[in-house]
């Protein structure tokens, strides 16, 4: 077993365990923290796949940005007084578990039955390679992302801001 395979197994186990903890844990802050660790493990997988720029971006955006956003949103809402009764019915949970489980097994059978040859030209996903591809072939999509970000910024401010006006 090579070092890469050992790293893959460790990182995949961390990612799966943290993703399960997101569902299992009780407190909301623990769940958000668990998502941050899951993102860390996935960033490690990107480094393993030689996409080092994306790994850095994953840590920057998910761990550095989105986790903070989630924590702030939890702080905005008074999460202790909200109650969750009645609980979702056991039947619903069971049916969704069966459905998701069968979907997963079908996907796994399909994936592991495939015999995909590995690429012949390995490359490293540096920032320069991504920049040449992004600004060479996808300029319009890039400007679309700019408009999307503008819409998200203005929309989020408009929706979240009413309270500040009232006070």
């Amino acid at each position, binding site marked *: 077993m090579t070092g890469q395979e050992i790293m893959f197994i460790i990182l995949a186990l961390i990612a799966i365990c943290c993703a399960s903890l*997101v569902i299992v844990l009780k407190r909301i802050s623990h769940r958000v923290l668990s998502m941050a660790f899951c993102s860390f493990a996935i960033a490690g997988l990107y480094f393993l796949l030689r*996409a080092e720029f994306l790994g850095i971006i994953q840590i920057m955006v998910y761990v550095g940005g989105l986790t903070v956003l989630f924590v702030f949103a939890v702080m905005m809402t008074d999460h202790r007084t909200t109650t969750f009764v009645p609980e979702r019915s056991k039947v619903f*949970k069971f049916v969704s578990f069966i459905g998701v489980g069968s979907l*997963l097994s079908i996907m796994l059978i399909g*994936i592991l039955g495939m015999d995909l040859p590995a*690429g012949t030209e390995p490359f490293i*996903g540096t920032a320069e390679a991504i920049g040449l591809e*992004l600004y060479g072939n996808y300029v319009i999509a890039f400007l679309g992302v700019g408009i*999307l970000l503008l819409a998200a910024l203005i929309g989020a401010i408009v929706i979240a801001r009413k309270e500040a006006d009232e006070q």
Partner: protein
Amino acid sequence: MMPVTLFLALGAILFCIGLYGVLTRRHIVVVLVCIELMLNSVNINLVAFSSVGPVANVTGQVFSLFVITIAAAEVAVGLAILIALYRNRASIDVIKHDLLRSS
């Protein structure tokens, strides 16, 4: 070189964990976190095909960058809607926000 199928299997597992969370949890923040997990698994697939797929190409990583951007924008707007909902209806339970449902 590692086979691409291992990464695809990991992506499928993470996607199904996220899907189960979206279906069964009732806290809006948890639902959004689970959607983030699903988008992460999509990113794993894109990067795996881009690096060790049959036709290795950097385009997959560019699209993964777009997915990360859209995830961030979606969380920003989604959590703003959560704050507005909490202000108006004092609840962050998914089930209680079904006013648009007929009957």
